[in-house]
């Protein structure tokens, strides 16, 4: 280190830019090997390579900051302009541009903790994506027969879950995918286990969780991969992380949040006694309904049996007998009436016939002459020849005579006849 005071009086000491810069660099970096700095973020950018650049500023000054990828990968929250931060790091000098900058090793939001910020940010993001919508949450099966568990194979959580399930619901088959529930890579393991259960397809419901711990211990359940795996799960998921007071992103995303792993086991299946009681009740209602139905059917039968028609069938028949009787009487009258009318018409006709009968005329002194042998009525003398035999009918009897003369005068044409015999 060249610390001599170089005055103009003495020999001029001429630095190269690099040498001077190197000297300043050493001076700066030794003077501020590490420091905490607080300020507000501005001009935030992130390069393709993942390095973060911004300035920390306050009312009067501004400090260039670099947050390299290796250091910033553990950052739980998103940086943005305007944030108040506390940064830990050291001052370095970037020789090519001659600028000094603050190389950040750790970054914390001022006021609230970093995890709190990260939690809020992810919660808001997933809320916007609809992860917490009640409408999309799946209903738990009434009685899952296969319960999938995603948790650590050691510890209170798995022990509590197994104890409760075995006691309350010994019929349930339990399948475990053991995972790391805290530390590096735990979120990915948990997410993968949920996906594996979805591929395996046997489980009716999943319990995902762990026992209590600090916010850092529970952190895996606040990470996006776990939330996404739960959101995309076709199998209903119960989230059971930590204690009653711990709310994680998993809890918000899951179809059901259980305050503890024990509570999850109790929520997942209604107890055997309860279900047995429910079935017993249903069966009792069934039996009562059937008994009632039979009783009512019996009553109905009784009622029908007591019906008037069945009790006094003869009365019922008598009505018909009487009606038939009535009909036949009326029919007889009708026929009698018809006969009477016809008889009357007959007599009438006979009387008319009688009036018109030629025989009737004979009784008044007229006679009819028939020409023999054909017995044709002779109404005109021209029809007769002398010597023809004729039969004359009188009112009583008839006689046969022979024409001996005739007159053809129209008015009073007569034929004189000799009467040989009287009939």
């Amino acid at each position: 280190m060249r610390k001599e005071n170089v005055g103009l009086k003495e020999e001029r000491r001429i630095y190269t830019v690099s040498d001077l810069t190197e000297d300043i660099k050493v001076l700066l970096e030794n003077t501020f090997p590490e420091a905490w700095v607080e300020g507000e973020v501005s001009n935030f950018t992130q390069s393709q390579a993942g390095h973060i650049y911004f300035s920390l500023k306050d009312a009067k000054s501004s400090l260039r900051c670099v947050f390299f990828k290796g250091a910033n990968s553990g950052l739980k929250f998103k940086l943005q302009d305007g944030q108040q931060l506390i940064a830990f790091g050291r001052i370095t000098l970037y020789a090519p541009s001659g600028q000094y900058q603050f190389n950040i090793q750790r970054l914390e939001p001022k006021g609230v903790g970093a995890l709190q910020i990260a939690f809020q940010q992810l919660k808001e993001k997933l809320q916007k994506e609809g992860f917490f919508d009640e409408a999309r949450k799946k209903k738990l099966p009434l009685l899952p027969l296969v319960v999938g568990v995603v948790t650590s194979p050691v510890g209170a959580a798995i022990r509590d879950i197994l104890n409760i399930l075995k006691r309350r619901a010994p019929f349930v088959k339990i399948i475990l995918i053991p995972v790391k529930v805290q530390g590096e890579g735990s979120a990915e393991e948990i997410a993968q286990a949920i996906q594996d259960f979805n591929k395996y397809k046997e489980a009716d419901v999943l319990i995902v969780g762990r026992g209590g711990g600090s916010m850092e211990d529970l952190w895996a359940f606040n990470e996006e991969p776990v939330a996404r795996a739960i959101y995309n799960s076709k199998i209903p998921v119960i989230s059971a992380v930590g204690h009653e007071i711990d709310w994680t992103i998993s809890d918000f995303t899951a179809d059901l949040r259980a305050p503890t792993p024990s509570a999850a086991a109790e929520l997942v299946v209604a107890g055997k006694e309860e279900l047995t009681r429910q079935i017993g009740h249903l069966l009792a209602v069934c039996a009562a309904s059937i008994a009632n139905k039979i009783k009512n059917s019996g009553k109905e039968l009784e009622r029908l049996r007591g019906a008037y028609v069945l009790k006094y069938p003869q009365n019922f028949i008598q009505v018909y007998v009487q009606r038939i009787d009535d009909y036949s009487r009326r029919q007889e009258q009708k026929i009698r009436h018809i006969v009477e009318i016809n008889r009357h018409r007959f007599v009438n006709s006979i009387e008319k016939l009688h009036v018109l009968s030629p025989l009737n005329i004979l009784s008044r002194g007229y006679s009819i002459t028939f020409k023999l042998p054909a017995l044709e009525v002779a109404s005109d003398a021209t029809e007769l020849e002398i010597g023809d035999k004729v039969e004359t009918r009188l009112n009583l009897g008839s006689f046969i005579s022979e024409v001996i003369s005739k007159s053809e005068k129209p008015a009073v044409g007569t034929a004189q006849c000799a009467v040989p015999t009287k009939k």
Partner: protein
Amino acid sequence: MAEIKFEEALKKLEKIVSDLEAGKLPLEESLKKYEEGVRLAQSCSKILDTAQKKVDVLTKKDAGGFELKPFDEESASEKE
């Protein structure tokens, strides 16, 4: 019938109960329903009475696919 899902059986049983309670079915059909109800209740009870003895661990096979191995429950209770 033994393979019927519990939930399905219970739903059917509930339907039968409400049908019977309505009392509109002919007696003969009611009796048939009742018999079915008793049968469903029996299969439900059978499911509840089955006891699973062990817990399995689901592991992925190298060749793909899954296999179940018994879970050593003692180790779970030993350490926290």
